[in-house]
């Protein structure tokens, strides 16, 4: 009987605790999320100068790089398939930064509605694949996603 009582005591405490944590987490939803996607930014109408993180995919064929006085100026568009936000960033982009890939940028909107990033992080997806497989897919023309950003950067 005491064993049964201890079992019930334990199960109810876990249930109550779980419920409490769930409530706290849903209340904190806005601060736990790491970034906002372009649609949310357009809907919320964030004021210029306010610091936040923007997340989404780098739009295909949107990356432009110029060298101004020895600094790399990168311009690209972040999209979530619905809305888009233009981004400028001065500095080195991470290795995994590619068009069509996820990206998380920290910064703020300027008065012209362009997101000025102070930091750009590349988001990796959960897919792993051997180089050779992708190469042979590319040869057969079945791989479209990664239109290399490097060739475009080299051309510009």
């Amino acid at each position, binding site marked *: 009987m005491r064993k049964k009582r201890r079992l019930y005591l334990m199960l109810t405490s876990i249930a109550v605790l779980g419920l409490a944590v769930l409530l706290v987490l849903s209340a904190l939803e806005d601060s736990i999320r790491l970034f906002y996607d372009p649609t949310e930014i357009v809907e919320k109408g964030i004021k210029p100068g306010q610091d936040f993180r923007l997340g989404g995919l780098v739009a295909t064929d949107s990356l432009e790089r110029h060298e101004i006085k020895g600094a790399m100026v990168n311009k690209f568009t972040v999209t979530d398939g619905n809305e888009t936000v233009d981004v400028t960033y001065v500095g080195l982009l991470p290795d995994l930064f590619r068009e069509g890939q996820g990206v998380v940028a920290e910064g703020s909107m300027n008065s012209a509605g362009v997101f000025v990033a102070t930091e750009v*992080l590349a988001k990796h997806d959960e897919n792993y694949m051997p180089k050779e497989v992708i190469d042979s897919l590319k040869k057969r023309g079945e791989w479209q996603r990664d239109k290399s950003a490097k060739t475009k950067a080299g051309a510009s």
Partner: protein
Amino acid sequence: MHKFANPARFMRLSNMFLPWIAGITVLLFALGLYYALVAAPEDYQMGSTYRIMFVHVPAAYMAQFGYGAIAVASAVGFIWKHPLADQAARAIGPVGAAFTALALITGSLWGKPMWGTYWIWDARLTSMLILFFVYLGYIAVWQTIEDHARAAKIAAIVAMVGLVNVIIIKFSVDWWNTLHQPASLMRMDGPTIGGDMLAALLLMIAAFNMFFFTIIIWRIQSLILRRRIRSLRMQLGGGRG
């Protein structure tokens, strides 16, 4: 009577199995490392750097596996007052903390070249750091409370409270947007990794798991021996007095 018989039987059985478990661990590590560093091909995006996953994922998995094991053992100890269960839970504490630290270290070594940062306060990374502190708290309970029965009870409560965090770790990448990618292995629609890459990952996870069992057995044996040492010391002290 089973209270006294069980630890003795554990000593006997564990000594019998230990050489086998240790042998399998060595074998799995040899095979796993070969697959991880030689057989598995380079990733199409990350090149060779993705091989960090073959230590990062097993470490993170063991951190959570260890905590799950503590929770189960504590519950058994709490409800059925099984002394061996409490000892097992206690033995896992420091090992789980070490694996959590390793997951955090290898994760940040992977994050810097790929994401562009060692650390970010996203839901996955933060909940993993919280797990590390929960482990430290759990160890501290056993270290500071002298009375074994009381320590076991409070440690069990800490273990249960921390269990909520482990569930949050698992689903953090699905519930909130994070920089950390979603699961590649434990997902409903099957793994998003295949071939020799998947083989390397599974072999390394198995190797870490067997390694975990090997050292946990030693640690439980140690705790049982120490209880015996304590009671013998009391006997000796009583004999003199």
